[in-house]
């Protein structure tokens, strides 16, 4: 496959992206008007949730790390919108967008950030560790690259059970240099697993640009060739393109049980986390260029208005509702109770939480 190496060339940031070349792709013409509006709504909800998080963080109600997804919405919206009952996802610590996209509520997501017992992980995981296994979302993982073998295991389990499904494991452009990622690539290819490795290439790993971290930096997905895997590169500012190209990978997984590596070019608007002042390693013009000319939410909005699917009035209503929902979540998170000291030692072992006459464990397991 011959691919354009860099979609984020500075020249392309100087003018607004035009209409999507992928609007007429079958994966997208298959969407009803209502489904398109729903997809836009989800992207807007992620955007407004994250922006509300910034305020809650600045008010001192969220501590620790907070990695925002603003700017990357089309990646998760495009990929997850294609998935069905037996398809699973797993990601790193930049995990809020994935949570909202699979249908987690803003309330449980916000309450987790403030460490409350009403949070998705009962205040035990935090920003980097969201989970919703009932929605086929397996986290939320803090260690760079650590989720990728797990995702490969989910794909293995789907195949083992004879289900028509797959797993998408998301990682950053910095994560591709972890050994565990390469071991997972090999296993997925060797065992023909229904696996899609999604590289969310936002150009930076913390303060390190992709060129400074990675040999052969032109194209990260191409490493798939070393394992005989299919690969593709995607403009992650265009949700239609993300859907069109991910659709091919999902079909490959479902129908041939073969893995794919997708590299999706995207951009984060804020620092690596709220702790990163973001002043040294990239220039303001670059961020401005992306915000003004490549914004995934805005581009999809323009697309849908041109198609007559969205009107300025419905757009405004959607955005206002998303903002209001995020405000409600912030209040919910604020008013919810903390876990208790007794809660600290719950959820460590299944056997301990469920001891009965038939337990397979005895003896002291939590120590003083």
């Amino acid at each position, binding site marked *: 496959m011959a691919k354009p190496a860099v979609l984020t060339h500075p020249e392309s940031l100087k003018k607004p992206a035009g209409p999507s070349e992928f609007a007429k792709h079958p994966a997208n013409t298959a969407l009803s008007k209502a489904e398109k509006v729903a997809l836009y709504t989800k992207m807007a909800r992620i955007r407004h949730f994250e922006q509300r998080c910034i305020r809650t963080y600045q008010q001192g109600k969220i501590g620790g790390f907070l990695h925002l997804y603003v700017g990357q919405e089309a990646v998760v919206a495009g990929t997850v919108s294609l998935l069905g009952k037996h398809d699973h996802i797993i990601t790193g610590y930049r995990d809020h967008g994935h949570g909202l996209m699979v249908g987690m509520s803003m309330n449980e997501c916000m309450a987790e950030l403030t*460490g*409350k017992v009403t949070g998705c992980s009962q*205040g*035990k995981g935090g920003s980097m560790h969201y989970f919703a296994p009932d929605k086929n979302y397996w986290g939320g993982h803090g260690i760079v690259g650590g989720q990728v073998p797990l995702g490969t295991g989910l794909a293995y389990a789907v195949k083992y059970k004879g289900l028509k499904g797959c797993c998408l494991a998301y990682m950053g452009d*910095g994560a591709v240099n972890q050994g565990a990622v390469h071991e997972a690539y090999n296993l997925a290819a060797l065992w023909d697993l229904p696996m899609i490795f999604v590289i969310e290439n936002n150009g930076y790993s*913390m303060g*390190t640009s992709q060129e400074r971290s990675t040999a052969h930096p032109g194209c990260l997905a191409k490493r798939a060739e070393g394992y005989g895997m299919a690969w593709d590169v995607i403009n992650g500012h265009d949700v239609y393109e993300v859907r069109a190209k991910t659709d091919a990978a999902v079909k490959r997984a479902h129908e041939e049980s073969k893995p794919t590596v997708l590299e999706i070019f995207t951009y984060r608007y804020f620092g690596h986390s709220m702790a990163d002042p973001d002043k040294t*390693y990239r220039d303001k013009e670059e961020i401005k260029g992306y915000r003004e000319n490549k914004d995934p939410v805005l581009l999809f909005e323009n697309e849908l208005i041109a198609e007559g699917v969205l009107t300025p009035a419905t757009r405004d209503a959607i955005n206002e509702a998303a903002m209001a929902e995020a405000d409600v979540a912030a209040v919910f998170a604020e008013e919810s109770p903390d*876990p208790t000291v007794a809660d*600290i030692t719950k959820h460590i072992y299944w056997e301990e939480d469920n001891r009965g006459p038939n337990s397979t464990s005895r003896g002291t397991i939590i120590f003083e």
Partner: protein
Amino acid sequence: MAVITYREALRAAMREELQRDENVVVMGEEVAQFNGAYKVTEGLLKEFGPKRVVDTPISEAGFIGLGIGASMLGIRPVMELMFWSFSYVAFDQIVNNAGNIRYMSGGLINCPIVIRGPGNGGTNVGATHSHTPEAILASHPGIKVVCPATPYDAKGLMKAAIRDNDPVYVMENTILYNDKGEVPEGDYIVPLGVADVKRVGTDLTIVAHGRAVITSLKAAEILEKEHGVSVEVVDLRSIRPLDEETILASVRKTHRALLVEENKPFCGVDAQVAYIIQAKAFDDLDAPIGRVSSIDAPQIYCKRMEDEQLPHAARVVAAALKVLA
């Protein structure tokens, strides 16, 4: 003496050693251009250039292993782990390779590497980022581990670690990085394996390391003021080698011991310390040895509960009163 932060003290140690020995190399994620995720290495790239201060990809097993290999040929790498929690990705290199190579080669190969970074909880970042692996690592013969609690010790131990000919793992603490203290400007070392009596007392010995020393000093203050108890605080500073003599001398004087650490209790550093005290000073003890560790669970995210999970002054005071009862 200048009053500087724990962070500046670590930086001064690296800077002086970079000047002293051309084989010293500082390496890790974001250490050079970004000046360190926690700014410990700030300014080193500017002063020493990219050959001596090197940014790595996010490949801990790879670059730590590389550092170990380079040390075998006489380079003295000072490798930063952004968190000691990330050492688990490189466990084979850190334990199997660095810890065993001298032994397995019958003493032919040395491994003078330093691996450093914060190894602490208390920062509201959840279980994957809050590990305190000093006990796990020190349980492997071949490895040395130190945990400075003050700026003075941070500089002196770091310099000793860099000059040491064995693998030395320095566990720092992000919560201590801004703590200030008196630090000599010139050269000095704190040898590995020498504990320090941080507070002199007569009624009870508290043995601690890392940030638990600071917590214990606070508790000692409260015990003195509110309960009229005179507490001696022994800072281990070094986990392996361990200064048994200083621990035992203090216990022989006070006849009571309370062990405080941030580790989870099972096989924590204090399990070993307790064994040593009862084996070598049994007749000197007037009460069973007391112990305060973190509550035995993966680190909880919720900040209010994490503060409860860690040893804090109130818990130390309560445990001390029990030992004194």
